[in-house]
């Protein structure tokens, strides 16, 4: 983990560290924008439908407007595991700062305090707070103890490409071994030419270049992974 990354590390009671990746202002603004579009589309359709009911429709629309304005994010954050439709779209999620899922109370706090974050207009206070805090928290997040994080990508299980294990001839540090394993796992998503080009960097270790060099490097990875 590089010091330059925005990663929040939480330590669980089991003594293991979990990493969260707080989301910055731009992506959150997009999510907000998507949510606003959804809300206003819904309100417009509702207005068109309810207009036929006269004053009755007007009353229902006002209730709908109230719910959309204040409680739409609360409802979706709690029922949708921390994701409003806009956040879902951009793969964001609201969670408590200690990694737990968000409940009704914190969600209500963080969303009502949009009033303060919105001061003096265009979410200025919220933006300044986002930029000044380590974990990109606006005032509502600070008061509620919540974070907006990038959602984990789906855990994919890349298989190491099959290769004849090649025993190591030099000693490598753990980081170097890890880098070779990482390369081998990624190599299936690269073109053959690009893989070979990258494997060429390791030619002092593998003693070969091109396709043969790649085979050697994958073999080393296989050896690191499973031994002979």
């Amino acid at each position, binding site marked *: 983990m590089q010091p330059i990354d925005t990663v929040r590390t939480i330590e669980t009671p089991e003594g*293991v560290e979990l990493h969260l990746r707080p989301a910055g202002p731009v992506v959150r603004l997009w999510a907000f924008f998507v949510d606003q579009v959804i809300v206003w589309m819904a309100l417009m359709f509702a207005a068109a439908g309810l207009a036929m009911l006269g004053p*009755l429709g*007007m009353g229902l629309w006002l209730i709908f407007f109230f719910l959309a304005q*204040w409680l739409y994010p609360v409802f979706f954050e709690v029922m949708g595991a921390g994701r409003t439709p806009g956040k879902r779209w951009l793969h964001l999620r609201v969670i408590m700062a200690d990694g737990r899922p968000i409940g009704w109370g*914190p969600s*209500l*706090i963080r969303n009502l*305090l949009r009033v303060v974050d919105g001061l003096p207009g265009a979410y200025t206070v919220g933006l300044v707070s986002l930029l000044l805090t380590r974990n990109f928290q606006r005032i509502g997040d*600070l008061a509620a103890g919540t974070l907006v994080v990038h959602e984990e990508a789906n855990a994919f299980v890349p298989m190491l490409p099959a290769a004849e294990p090649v025993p190591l001839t030099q000693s490598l540090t753990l980081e170097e071994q890890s880098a070779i394993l990482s390369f081998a796992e990624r190599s299936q998503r690269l073109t053959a030419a690009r893989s070979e080009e990258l494997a060429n960097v390791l030619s002092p270790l593998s003693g070969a270049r091109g396709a043969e060099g790649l085979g050697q490097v994958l073999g080393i990875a296989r050896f690191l992974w499973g031994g002979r």
Partner: protein
Amino acid sequence: MRQQLFEQQNLQLWEDLGGWLNQQPTLATEEVPAAYRQLCHHLAVARERHYSPALVERLQQLALRLHQRIYGVKGEGLQEAFRFLWQGFPREVRGEWRLVLVSGLLFFGTWVAAFLLVRAHPNLVHLLLSPEEAAKFVQMYDPNTPVAGATGATRDVMMFGFYIYNNIGIDFQIFASGLLAGVGPLFFLPFNGLHGGVVMAHLTNKGLTSTFYGFISGHSSFELIGAVLSGTGGLRMGLSLMHPGRRSRLASLREGARKGARLLFGAAVLTFIAACFEGFWSGNTEVPWKVKVAVGLVFWMALILWLLLAGRRDR
């Protein structure tokens, strides 16, 4: 240990845990904590031994999902919410009695003072209300004014919607602006009290007692106490920020916001009840106004008794 052997030995456990997360009966719930601790151990070992990044990432994501599931609060059900409203909320209100007193005085104190002042000197009404506004209020409560436009149930629903949107929205705003060092409630509470007192005195001066008091009495208890308590919630939050005591400012703010939001939740429900009465009962012209005032007084008494007494036994 080589990574392959490590994976081989433990894959079953990881898959079982993953299956349990996806609602499959791979593990009994009692077995999950032990398996989860095992997984945490595996994650630490995998990191320490620099196994391949994909494996570490996979274990860390599984651990994160389990962490959220295991330590997540069990969702507060509807029953829980009603229980809180019925017993917990009055307790919270009594727990904050000093701030309730402050916001109550700010609101009702200004209200009564303004009322008495304008009763004694009717012309003072124009300090707050322009002549047009004053005339509009008089016209609103004039029994001879025909009700414009729609009447009956549809109009009631329209007004009900408006009261929800407007009054609960105001509650939310008073609460949120409390974060600014309590300035929001310190301004809104006296201002609304002043406005209410002046209008009430003005209409009393004009002799519109029957329509005005008949209208407001039914819902006034819920609405005014709701406004005061949302102000209390905002003050709680602002005070926690300004005066953290021994805690860090952030921890204090979090605690204050949590308490304040609980007060606000109850206050919003009260305001919702007020909107129901205001929409469907207060405007009713068939019930004699004295009956409506009597009902309103009963509501005031019941509400105050409830806030003072409910939830004392069951702790």
